[in-house]
């Protein structure tokens, strides 16, 4: 793996103003994303998991320049995207593309497949008719769509096919970074694996870099090299996939892993760490470590002091006062990831 950093995110925050009332005396905010720090290396897949409301999609939208951050830096190839002028930013957009969750709403129902895939090319490249057609055909081949359907409308396709159209749009410009925002969660199980396999194939063949956002851990695990776990607007753990599944450091990660139902009735008896309680409202996050309200190991310090998001061991980042699986921390120095 190359170690060149494509994207560095520093202290990224998004607070939505939800102040109610006529006089707007008491300001109140939803702390959707509250201080993210991570980087994405060239050619890797960074998975971001978390439950609804954890801010993973908001983060994706900010990196994809669909939302303006409240604070922080998004440094793409050494350039802070937030300091760019509008025209520079529009050029940059060709390098960062998105794939959306719902293949039924992310394609304009009144545009034909050709137009849909040609749109990004028309916007950023000056191609003549023949070149445009060739490129669109090439993209359709690449994602496994029959060229004969070029003049069809999106509603004539099934969910999986539509997602292929969305993928073709996203890769048409040879982007450097693709943000996949829950690209398979709206699809049926048997179709999900088709699309995941396609994404992996494209990522390898075209040497793409992905940020893969999802709430389904199995999918994230399959596709990602490193995984960031988010809870209430913050990253609680970030490490390579192998290390994460060896054993989690953060109790939330462990609860999340444990909550995923295993499709094998023989494992029913396995002991689980079910996280009790509800996710607190991001409008009013708890003091200290924001997981302390549900954490079985919470101590006084957790209630008062926010744990630092730091490297606990080689390549294992976590924000927790009392990390689990400490035996992994020591041995990790010598263990080489495979």
């Amino acid at each position, binding site marked *: 793996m190359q170690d060149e950093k494509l994207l560095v995110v520093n202290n990224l925050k998004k607070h939505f103003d939800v102040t109610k009332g006529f006089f707007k005396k008491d300001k109140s905010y939803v702390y959707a994303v509250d201080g993210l720090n991570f980087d994405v290396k060239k050619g890797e897949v960074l998975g971001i998991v978390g439950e609804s409301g954890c801010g993973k999609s908001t983060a994706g939208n900010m990196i994809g320049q669909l939302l303006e951050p409240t604070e922080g830096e998004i440094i793409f190839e050494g350039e802070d995207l937030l300091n760019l002028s509008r025209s520079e930013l529009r050029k940059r957009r060709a390098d960062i593309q998105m794939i959306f969750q719902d293949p039924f709403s*992310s394609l304009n129902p009144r545009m034909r497949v050709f137009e849909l895939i040609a749109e990004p090319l028309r916007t950023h490249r000056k191609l003549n008719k023949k070149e445009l057609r060739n490129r669109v055909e090439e993209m359709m081949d690449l994602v496994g769509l029959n060229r004969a359907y070029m003049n069809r409308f999106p509603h004539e396709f099934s969910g999986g096919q539509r997602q292929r159209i969305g993928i073709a749009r996203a890769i048409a410009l040879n982007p450097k970074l693709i943000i996949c925002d829950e690209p398979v969660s709206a699809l049926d199980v048997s179709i999900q694996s088709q699309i995941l396999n396609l994404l992996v194939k494209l990522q390898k063949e075209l040497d793409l870099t992905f940020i893969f956002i999802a709430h389904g851990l199995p999918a994230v695990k399959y596709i990602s090299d490193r995984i960031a776990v988010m809870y209430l607007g913050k990253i609680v753990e970030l490490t390579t996939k192998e290390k994460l599944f060896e054993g989690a450091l953060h109790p939330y990660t462990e609860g999340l892993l444990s909550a995923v139902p295993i499709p094998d009735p023989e494992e029913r008896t396995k002991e689980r760490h079910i996280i009790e309680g509800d996710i607190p409202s991001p409008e009013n996050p708890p003091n200290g470590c924001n997981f302390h309200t549900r954490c079985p190991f919470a101590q006084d310090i957790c209630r008062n002091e926010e744990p630092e998001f730091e490297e606990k061991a080689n390549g294992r980042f976590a924000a927790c006062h009392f990390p689990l699986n400490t035996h992994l921390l020591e041995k990790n120095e010598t263990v080489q990831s495979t």
Partner: protein
Amino acid sequence: MSHESQAVVNDISKDELVENRPSSLKRWMRLLWRSKTGTVGLIIVVIALLVAIFAPLIAPYQPQEINPVNMLKPPFWMENGSMENILGTDNLGRDIFSRILYGSQISILVGVMSVVVAGFIGVTVGLVSGYFGGIIDNILMRLVDSFLAIPTILFALVILAIFDSGVFTLIIVLGVTNWVNYARLVRGEVLTLKERDYVKAAHSIGVSNFKIIVRHLLPNVISSFIVISTLSVATTIILEASLSFLGLGVQPPTVSWGSILSDGRDYLSTSWWLATFPGIAITITVLGIIFLGDWLRDVLDPRTQK
């Protein structure tokens, strides 16, 4: 598993379309045939348009042709009626049938053109207001509110009293008073459309605002616009008739259904046919347009396209 080797069967699925559709013309014909009122509406509208276009060929007389000998002749089936003036004549001996045929030209022209004017202003304002939001939206919507507060007829009366009343003024006046409805409708639609993922997707690709409005929003509001505008062609024809009835519409020698109706007003008790036949023409045409509009609403709604 027994078919481990099969596990890597080609990932690229067979491209099977969810549904094979008949060509769109065929589909429209089928949908039209299924709706009786739609069919009736279309037939009426087509006839009205043909009549308006070919009025000079069909009409036995000129609309302003005065014939003092034949004043207030009743329709042909009544005593004293004759086939020469099948719907009778008015107080100046003008042939009612010919006048209605010619009148359809102005009534339909005013109805359609004023909706085009109103639609152009309204759709533009609605798109801009809904898409950009913020202060632009605030200003434009307050403007819309103030227009809504003015009674249409009163506004038309004032304008027509100031300017020369003629077909062109009428079109502009009716257009300017009606655009607010479209602006509100389109703005509402845009507000929901712009939250759709495909608009977000276009943003993420870097498509310019103008292109997003023209290529992603406009085509998706046009169907509801068409539905509302057909219905409003109908109401505008009535509005034109009312204004002409009040003497503020088209001026002689031009005829419209409203002006014929207005001319016949004084003879209602003695010679009912003067006002009745243009009234029937308005009613039938308006009904036809409304039927067609209802049917269009069903057809253009993507949920009924299954």
